[in-house]
């Protein structure tokens, strides 16, 4: 068991009449990427603000790296890097000046500064551009500089708010690889995102928040499985005239399999809803062979994380799209 570096238990927060967080509980562990998903206005930002000591919880216990955000905010701040979604690089400062600035603000010992700064420059691929002002760096490079500035003090917890917002594909992949590298070092990464492909690619665990409540939580694969939308498509080999009979016998043959939930015919293909299970394909092929049904092709499809998201937060998602909340 690895340690939970972010622990939220029964967190509540309201702004005036509006209840922003209504009893949120979750944990993020060392060496894992925790994805926090939800429609705009669902409470993602409020949660991150509380973790970053920018807002105070009304009720509930919140600890970061073992420190209580209310009792020990200074220690929490020393243990985190908070990278906001906006690019914060100062256009007038060079990359190296940024790193010097943050090295001083995070009180890095003088002996360590030069080495950490060189490492950071190399890590984000800024070597050779360190003396260019941020004004002349590309958007992606500025984002990488933002990240590098937060990591000089090797924080155990990193709070990332929409890290790839507005980045082109190439840079997005760079940033993703960089985040995966941080995970290897044992950092707990708390990632807020609206991009399901990003969550799918990076996260070990995700939580979906809607209207201030966690509506789903688990590993992405587990959540997809829970939707019960895993489908096996089987196309039988045979003439059109013959296919109907073959499909009928296949349907009978698989009906008793424990992995099969239900099936329906779709032209020359059989659509079989299955439990999310690795053996499903093998079992179906075996049943087809036993029943003497020749198979031309077989296909397994799994819902994406976006379907999971729409399933749990779809209503709020469409409302959010119309009123911009």
């Amino acid at each position, binding site marked *: 068991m690895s340690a939970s570096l972010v622990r939220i238990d029964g967190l509540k927060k309201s702004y005036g009449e509006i209840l922003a967080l209504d009893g949120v509980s979750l944990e993020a562990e060392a060496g894992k990427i925790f994805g926090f998903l939800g429609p705009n206005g669902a409470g993602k930002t409020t949660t991150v603000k509380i973790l*970053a*000591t*920018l807002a105070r919880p009304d009720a509930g216990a919140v600890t970061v790296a073992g420190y209580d955000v209310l009792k020990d905010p*200074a220690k929490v*701040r*020393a243990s*985190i890097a*908070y*990278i*906001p*979604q*906006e*690019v*914060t690089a*100062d256009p*007038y*400062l060079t990359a190296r*000046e940024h790193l*010097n*600035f*943050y090295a*001083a*603000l*995070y*009180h890095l010992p003088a002996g360590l500064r030069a080495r950490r700064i060189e490492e950071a420059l190399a890590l984000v691929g800024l070597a050779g551009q360190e003396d260019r*002002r941020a004004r002349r760096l590309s958007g992606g490079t500025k984002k990488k500089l933002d990240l590098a500035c937060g990591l000089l003090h090797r924080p155990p917890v990193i709070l990332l708010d929409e890290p790839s917002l507005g980045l082109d594909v190439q840079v997005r992949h760079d940033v993703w690889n960089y985040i995966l590298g941080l995970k290897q070092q044992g950092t707990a990464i708390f990632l807020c995102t609206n991009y399901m492909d990003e969550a799918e690619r990076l996260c070990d665990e995700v939580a979906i928040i809607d209207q201030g409540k966690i509506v789903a939580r688990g590993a992405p694969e587990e959540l997809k499985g829970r939707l019960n939308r895993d489908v096996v498509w089987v196309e039988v080999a045979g003439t059109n005239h013959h296919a109907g009979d073959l499909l009928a016998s296949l349907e009978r043959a698989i009906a008793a399999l424990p992995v099969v939930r239900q099936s329906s015919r779709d032209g020359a293909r059989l659509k079989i809803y299955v439990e999310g299970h690795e053996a499903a394909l093998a079992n179906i092929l075996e049943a087809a062979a036993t029943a003497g049904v020749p198979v031309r092709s077989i296909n397994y499809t799994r819902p994406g994380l976006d379907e999971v998201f729409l399933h749990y937060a779809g209503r709020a998602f469409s409302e959010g799209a119309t009123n911009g909340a």
Partner: protein
Amino acid sequence: MRDFIDETRAQFTRWMLHLKREPFSLAFNLLNPLILLVFMGSAFQGLARNALGADYRAYLLPGLLALTAFGNSMGGGIPLLFDRENGSLTRLMTAPISRASIIFSRFLAVNVSTMLQCLLILILGVLFGVRIATGVGGIFALLGVGLLLGFGVTAISLMLAFRFENHGDFFAVIGLTSLPLTFLSSAFVPLDNLPGWMRAVALVNPMTYAIDAMRALILTGWNPQGLAFMLAVLVVFDAVMLWLGSRMLGRHLA
């Protein structure tokens, strides 16, 4: 304390790099004083010699110094508003630093810049033939008075940086206060020659006291008693504004 000094130094360095790399941003603030020095100074030179019995440029210079100090201080909070707008202030607030260092470093930087700009205006005044009665020592005293005015106004500006939601409003406030308040002071004509309502405003305008103190230093010489009153008014103004500022900003940055 060591930490506070380190934090302040790092942030102060950032502001000085801004100043060094964007020197033309000062032009915005120096434009009005320069126009007044060159054109108004020349146009009224003859007229004023008879009326005031003084060299008009020498008479005008304190007003221009006060305008420079006021304008620069009043704009001093703008970079913090930019930092608020683009998220970098949020980021600073999650760093393990004393939040007072955010305000203090900006305060220092604004006043260093005020001093440099006032020095520039003073040098130009001297080049235009103004003689300073208190000599070289007077130059330091003049800069000191400029700073006494700047401290309180900077505090106001730093408060505004946390009140306004966009920098357009901020620029409007600077435009609506700097030059009008200069006219509503003893900058261009003696207080007694101002109409009643203007004199009433001028009497509560801290610029008036900075200008009168500087005018004495330029035209008359060292006069400790006269200076003491003006400086006391400015110190009270600073104390009140700094107190209000630290209270309000303390709440905002808590």
